[in-house]
């Protein structure tokens, strides 16, 4: 087993959430790395969809933007924005969605809008983009974000995207652990920790009293194959801290 850093395991763990034959709405950055990694390892039949309207695309290189030329050149179909949002995303034709956030709460709701007040924010973030509709339309949501009290907060500064909750599932992959929605209650619960990370470590990095699954397992280290493919993608997502 090769040495790896937590940022790499985060991408690998996110990739493992995807299954062969699923369609997945992908963004740039870690989501692209994870989805392309999944497609080149365990899920060759994964259907990658970018919100720019490129459906079933298979880029050789990691795209910088969601509308890079290569995404259109390798797609089975390239459609307009009204098409992608109204005919593909809204009716639930895309199974899984990848999201990031600056803040997450105990229910899995996300903030990508502001830190501080809305009118004169301390930090103005990019805003909603496609996230609210991805969160409500895809039945499986994978969220990746760094794990700290700053990101895992008791109350969001702004609710940009509402976790689907009922009927859907969410996996939150951090640099310490994996949290999932549960049938037992309407909160995220800790289900897996990264190697060398204790349940205590995760609880300490979370602002609310995090629910813990009856059995907590350890995320398997990246295989040589996973690391090899991930590193071949280049321009790795930046370290999370």
């Amino acid at each position, binding site marked *: 087993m090769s040495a790896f850093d937590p940022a790499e395991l985060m991408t690998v763990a996110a990739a493992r959430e995807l299954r062969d034959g699923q369609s997945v709405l992908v963004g740039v950055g870690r989501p692209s790395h994870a989805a392309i990694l999944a497609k080149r390892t365990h899920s060759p039949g994964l259907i990658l969809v970018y919100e*720019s309207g490129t459906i079933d695309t298979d880029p050789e290189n990691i795209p910088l933007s969601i509308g890079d030329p290569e995404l259109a050149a390798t797609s089975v179909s390239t*459609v307009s*924005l009204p098409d992608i*949002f109204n005919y593909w995303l809204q009716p639930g034709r895309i199974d899984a969605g990848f999201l990031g956030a600056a803040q997450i709460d105990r229910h899995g709701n996300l903030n990508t809008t502001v830190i501080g007040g809305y009118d004169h924010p301390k930090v103005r973030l990019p805003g909603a983009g*496609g996230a609210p509709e991805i969160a409500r339309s895809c039945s499986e949501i994978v969220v990746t974000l760094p794990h700290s009290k700053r990101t895992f907060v008791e109350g969001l500064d702004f609710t940009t*995207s509402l976790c689907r909750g009922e009927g859907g599932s969410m996996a939150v992959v951090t640099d310490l652990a994996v949290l999932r929605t549960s049938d037992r209650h309407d909160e995220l619960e800790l289900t897996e920790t990264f190697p060398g990370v204790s349940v205590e470590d995760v609880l300490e990095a979370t602002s609310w009293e995090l629910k813990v699954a009856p059995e907590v397992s350890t995320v398997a280290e990246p295989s040589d194959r996973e690391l090899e493919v991930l590193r071949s993608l280049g321009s790795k997502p930046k370290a999370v801290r």
Partner: protein
Amino acid sequence: MFLPLDQAIGDLLNDGDSVAFEGFTHLIPFAAGQETIRQGKRNLELIRMTPDLIYDQLIGAGCARRLVFSYGGNPGVGSLHRFRDAIEHDWPAPLELEEHSHAGMVNRYVAGAAGLPFAVLRGYAGTDLPQHVEVAEIECPFTGERLSAVPAIRPDLTVIHAQQADRRGNVQLWGIPGVQKEAVLAADRSLVTVEELVDEIELKPGGVVIPHWAVTAISHVPGGAQPSYTDGYTTRNNDFYREWDEISRDRDRFLRWLAAEGLADKAEVAR
């Protein structure tokens, strides 16, 4: 209808207008945006799903009074620093926001193009967005389902970039088509900058043709989408998108860039 770019912007865009420069990552009409800065247009309501670098430049240069948008980031790179500076510190002027989700913006353009007052979609419920923009909850008259209504967008002017125009002024674009057709049809006036003038349009796979009578003016501007790209003509300058992070981070560096590009000097930005 065929005009040089400076004359087209001069004739079609007035201070205080609402204007949409559309193009989703692909075909962003940068040359027209920079001509707008060069002419010192003021108090614009800028409409665009993704402000991207084109509006970061217009906002930083002091052209904007208001921004209607759904995602203000530098794709794959990080923040739009001029956009942030305007919102966080009112520099060079306060910026009023009208902020939606992508699906909301898309459907607002569709309603505008259709000549309808509003569009209907699922979304917004439970988020904080409706506290800050016009979104109404409505009931489906047939099923009783609760849905969101968003008002149509009707810009005074829409500006887009396309691959080709023919002698009659028919326009064709292909590759990622975004929401440009809807944005043109929603607007009172439209300007299309094109890579190439051709005798007659030959339809491309996935080509979107906008007929000449739906277009107000056309300007021949090869490379007019750079540093974004034009499928079949130019490639995306990803290095410039990364470099913009440095150029735009600091006010003085940004002002030096504006001057070096011949777009505006410091005194003009501050006025």
